[in-house]
């Protein structure tokens, strides 16, 4: 499963992305635009939205048409189109396959990350799998900040692919089919919020030994909304609580881009730990990066753990996102 996009390091992918974009000739729109409240989307449809974000425009278009006709189960709900997609066009017995729920939001609407922030609700995906199959936990691409202080949410505008690795049983018979189903539930918000739900199913043929990569998946794989933070274990990352500030320190060797940090954003995975809307200041040093986060006013006792995603971007748009999960040491013990 070498070519599986799941588990990609965004740092690594960013380099690839620049190569793909013939660095300098294009700018990568999702890196540049994603902090906008309403990411550009002219509302002319799915294909148009995708082509803005994927450099391989003709490929993506072809894939869209073929994929939609062939197998992708989709559902239309108010302001959201939901689609179940897979990384491969067939299933191999016993071989893990990544599947994703692609949610495409109408312009100006957004759905939420695992911690929605100050308002909203995390999207939920409940898998329905054939006997003997199991799904790993859901993985969330890096969200964007949406809203204005004092109320800020962690959400996805435009589109997102929420993913799980599915493990099919090894006893599947080649020539048969394998159906992956799920119930996706979300809250979609603009100036108002509406809950939505979709029952999706995707039937894939079972191949004996190999399954070709899905072209739509490939086209989406390098977009911000399809990539995960780097989950490799990090050493030397610390978090210290002093009064009402949490100082997150990341050694340079764990995050080389931090030396040239231009924009830094920490997305907290838990509520009542940091103030989501407070400005986050950062200070690069020769050894690492310190990010200052304001303690949440909803924290009734010192929080024990800092979990979330740290995103660091350089002025040249080199970006790295990394999972953070460290204990918070309270250094202001009275």
């Amino acid at each position, binding site marked *: 499963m070498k070519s599986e996009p799941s588990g990609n390091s965004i740092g690594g992918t960013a380099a690839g992305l620049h190569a793909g974009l013939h660095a300098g000739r294009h700018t990568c729109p999702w890196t540049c635009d994603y902090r906008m409240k309403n990411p550009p989307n002219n509302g002319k449809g799915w294909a148009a939205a995708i082509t803005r974000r994927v450099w391989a425009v003709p490929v993506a278009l072809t894939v869209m048409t073929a994929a939609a006709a062939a197998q992708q189960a989709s559902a239309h709900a108010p302001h959201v189109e939901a689609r179940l997609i897979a990384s491969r066009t067939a299933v191999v017995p016993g071989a893990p396959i990544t599947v994703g729920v692609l949610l495409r939001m109408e312009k100006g609407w957004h759905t939420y990350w695992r911690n*929605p922030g*100050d*308002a*909203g*609700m*995390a999207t939920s995906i409940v898998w329905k799998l054939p006997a003997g199959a199991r799904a790993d936990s859901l993985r969330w691409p890096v969200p964007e900040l949406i*809203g204005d202080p*004092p*109320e800020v*949410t962690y959400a996805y505008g435009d589109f997102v692919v929420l993913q799980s690795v599915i493990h099919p049983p090894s006893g599947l018979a080649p020539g048969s089919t394998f159906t992956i189903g799920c119930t996706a*539930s979300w*809250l979609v*918000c603009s*100036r*108002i*919020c*509406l*809950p939505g739900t979709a029952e999706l199913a995707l039937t894939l043929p079972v191949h004996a030994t190999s399954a070709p990569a899905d072209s739509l998946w490939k086209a989406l794989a390098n977009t911000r909304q399809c990539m995960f933070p780097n989950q490799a274990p990090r050493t030397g990352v610390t978090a210290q609580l002093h009064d009402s500030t949490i100082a997150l320190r990341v050694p340079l060797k764990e995050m080389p881009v931090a030396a040239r940090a231009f924009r830094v954003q920490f997305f907290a995975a838990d*509520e*009542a730990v940091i103030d989501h809307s407070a400005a986050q200041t950062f200070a690069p040093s020769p050894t690492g990066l310190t990010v200052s986060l304001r303690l*949440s*006013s*909803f924290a*009734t006792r010192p929080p024990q753990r800092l979990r979330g995603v740290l995103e660091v971007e350089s002025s040249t748009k080199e970006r790295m996102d990394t999972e953070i999960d460290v204990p918070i040491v309270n250094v202001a013990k009275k």
Partner: protein
Amino acid sequence: MRSNIRTWIAVVLVAAAAGLIIGTAFITRTAQADDALAPDFTLTDIHGTQYRLADLKGKFVVLEWLNFDCPFVQKHYNSHNMQNLQRTYRDKGVVWLSIVSSAAGKEGYYSPDALNEIAQKREAAPTAILMDSDGKVGKLYGARTTPHMFVIDPKGEIVYKGAIDDRRSTNPDDVKEAKNYVAAALDEVLNGKPVTVAATQPYGCSVKY
């Protein structure tokens, strides 16, 4: 004589220092008390009656931030959770004020008459529904979401603020399984006990200021 003066000066200095310490401690305590003190406000309800928080001293008061069009609020009204809480605790002498801070033209804003009609249809049973269209009271309390709940004790101190329960969802079925923080806080204070969970992060729709 000289040593007497010295002693006298020393006594005065010690007394002054002690006074300063006590004073500082007192100021600190007052500051903390102020943090918990519910800010006073006056708002008009949908029938034109004025409600001033200071007039309700001596009673337990619940503030509920309300937007009938918010799916999180609908969860608690469709399941009758909110109405049941309102009835249960009003029967025990609690004053329940639902506050609508939606600005005119934004989601959840209705004229007092329209709000009255919706509230009746919903069988809502608060003591009053208060109009806060300029959002002043919502901002004074830092109301972030609908619902966002506050429980105020007879001394005027906020003893609970935050979410209505521990299930951040819009699904009415979750109400049965949820731990209701407002009910827990009210049950404790009505029985003279301190509140175990005094603050949580609220969940819901953003307040449409």
